[in-house]
């Protein structure tokens, strides 16, 4: 027995050492090199690593190439699959790996997951911060800006097929919950074979659009609701919760037979196809999908067939969000030269390189120094919503634990939970996320 003890001790010691090594790696956080001196010349001939989505637009890819040409630096791309990019970033991040440039979601609740104050370079001194109103709500956390947001900024709204609505006698598209139910009833009464509202529950995220991102516009004016939930002043399962009434609207639509038959398995791609071929009357999605529509049919057909308008619980307040596409951060890597070059990249794409990007991408600029090009069709309709004074940041921006809302919305959609159970469940997730941040 005694002869076995040393072996056991050795095994446990080895395990302990390995655990300690693992923890040391996982504890992550490269040593801070302090703030970057912007007055110094940016280095050239540096190779920067960028983690970015494999679904980056051509306009973004061209922007990267333009920076390489202008700076003499090279970007070494690490493509992350678009669907799983957030989890892929978390996985690599947790092992202590860091890129020089990170394309990432600039909402405060997503930023918090990467522990910005310890892991990212403060870029508050860049001209971008003064020139972009959006930097107040995106790319900034606790008053410090870590990320730049070029756009496209998505605005959540209701796409509608003009012919289906006209055949149902609807002169204007619905812009609130009550009108949506009435429009559904009108389409059903018109004898049309088209479903009134297309829901792509199989893709999960579309199920959050109608009851969440779009519906919550009224309640989240000025991001008031999201910030109150994040502070713990408001619970999403409080009496009269707007989240619960949004979910209840989904139940009402489902019970009234307004959705497509395959609402639980259909994908968002199918919703766009249904819009174009007139097998559905309406669907709520972000303006990101406009490009997909124009890719699926010629511009004249899309403009003649599909319209885009704002939608919210009561007054049609548009909500918007900046996504990971066109949003960049410079992580602390411990290599001062590369850190300086990474900040130079952020500076260049928001100054010298920005107008070219705006022109090519056909987006509403997020930086005041750039001019919006002439937008047409659905792009112009989306831009109009985005530039409205009452437009508000999406309710997800500040709520910790928002990542669970998709699953909860699907459970309500398919009848697995009631709206009341849904908000109760979500509040538990929110509490978990708030506790994790403390």
């Amino acid at each position, binding site marked *: 027995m005694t002869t076995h003890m040393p072996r056991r001790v050795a095994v446990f010691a080895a395990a302990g050492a390995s655990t300690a090594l693992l923890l040391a790696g996982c504890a992550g956080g490269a040593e801070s090199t302090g703030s970057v001196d912007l007055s110094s010349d940016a280095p050239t001939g540096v190779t920067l690593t960028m983690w970015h989505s494999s679904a980056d637009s051509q306009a973004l890819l061209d922007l990267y190439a333009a920076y390489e040409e202008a700076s003499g630096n090279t970007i070494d791309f690490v493509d992350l699959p678009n669907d799983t990019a957030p*989890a892929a970033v978390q996985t690599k991040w947790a092992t202590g790996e860091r890129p020089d440039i990170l394309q990432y979601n600039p909402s405060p609740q997503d930023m918090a997951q990467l522990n910005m104050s310890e892991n990212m370079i403060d870029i508050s001194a860049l001209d971008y911060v003064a020139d972009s109103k959006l930097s107040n709500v995106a790319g900034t956390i606790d008053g410090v800006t870590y990320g730049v947001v070029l756009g496209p900024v998505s605005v959540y709204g209701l796409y509608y097929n003009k012919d289906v609505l006209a055949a149902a006698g609807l002169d204007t598209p619905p812009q609130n919950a009550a009108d949506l139910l009435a429009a559904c009833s009108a389409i059903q009464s018109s004898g049309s074979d088209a479903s009134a509202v297309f829901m792509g529950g199989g893709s999960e995220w579309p199920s959050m659009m109608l009851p969440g991102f779009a519906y919550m516009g009224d309640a989240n004016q000025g991001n008031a609701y999201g910030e109150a939930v994040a502070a713990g002043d408001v619970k999403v399962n409080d009496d009269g919760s707007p989240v619960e009434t949004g979910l209840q609207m989904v139940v009402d639509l489902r019970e009234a037979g307004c959705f497509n*038959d395959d609402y639980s398995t259909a994908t968002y791609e199918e919703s766009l196809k249904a819009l174009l071929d007139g097998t559905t009357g309406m669907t709520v999605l972000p303006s990101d999908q406009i490009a997909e529509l124009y890719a699926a049919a010629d511009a004249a057909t899309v403009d003649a067939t599909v319209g885009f308008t704002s939608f919210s619980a009561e007054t049609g307040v548009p909500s918007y969000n900046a996504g990971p596409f066109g949003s960049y951060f410079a992580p602390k890597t411990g290599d001062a030269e590369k850190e300086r070059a990474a900040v130079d990249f952020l500076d260049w794409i928001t100054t010298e390189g920005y107008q070219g990007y705006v022109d090519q991408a056909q987006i509403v600029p997020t930086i005041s120094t750039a001019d919006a090009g002439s937008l047409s069709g659905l792009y112009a309709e989306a831009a109009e919503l985005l530039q409205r004074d009452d437009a508000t940041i999406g309710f997800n921006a500040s709520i910790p634990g928002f990542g669970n809302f998709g699953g909860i919305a699907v459970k309500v959609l398919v009848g697995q939970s009631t709206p009341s159970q849904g908000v109760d469940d979500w509040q538990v997730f929110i509490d978990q996320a708030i*506790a994790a941040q403390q």
Partner: protein
Amino acid sequence: MHATEAIVTGKPVARTRRRAGGLISPPARGQRDGRRISYRLWFALPAIALTVFFFGLPFIANAFLSFTKWTGFSSTISFNGLDNFISLSKLGILGHATYVTVVYAVITMLAQNVVALMMAKALQSSNRLNTFYRSLFFAPVLFSPLAAGYIWSAMLAPAGPINGFIGLFVPGFHFAWLGEQSTALIMVALIDAWKWSGLVTLVYISGLNTISRSVIEAAVLDGASAWRRFRSIEMPLLAPAFTFNVVLTLVGSFSALDIIFSTTKGGPGDATEVLNFAVYNQYGQGLFGTSSALSFMIAILVMITAVPLIWYLRKREVHE
């Protein structure tokens, strides 16, 4: 007998040892056993090293991290006792995901073994036609699980070919096989079973072919029917293959993720959210400690299932 002679004749060399002075008596039994164990240990060493480094240490590290507050929100990792498990329990994830995982594993194991045993009986003889069918049924094993999932998603779509075929007999048939809570879990488990049945079939075929023909022929002469021969002779003698297949399919299914990822993504709602999918979701939100706790649960589930199951199945194995 010399060693060379032993190699030619295949007979063992007498266990004698030489010293300078001539023959000596064989070493004591304990000494011989010790050397034999030591000799075997050298061969086992690579396997032991691999097990320690790729299972033992990660398992211990994972167990430790399960009891820590480790998140993306902070760079420090602190011990938090049972908080992760309590939190997962309050969220309803722990109980639900464990339940879904167990149901998924049982359906997969039963479907795979029943179908594979039937196929093994049908394809037992080694002729050209059976060789072709064995290859055909083995082909899904070579597919990527993600590809298999995507293929079956399309097949089972409401407007897909399976509903189209049923529609030939039931006009207007429309059903979302992967979109209904009542069928989604069963369907993804059956897809998993389809994917791996070819492998299980081969194990059963090799098990059936190791049974001595003389035993079967004796039973035929005694007038035993085909069913009686299968039930009373082949089934008991298949016990080692049965043990291997049941444990492999059951324990393997506890780690399911890829097929679920490519078919239902844990849905509808959380109807197919197995433990690994819950791990993925927690990890994606920067909650690494709770994610480790769920991973630890999978390891525990595998151990508390596999160890007694192997013990029980090995106990009932019979040999010719």
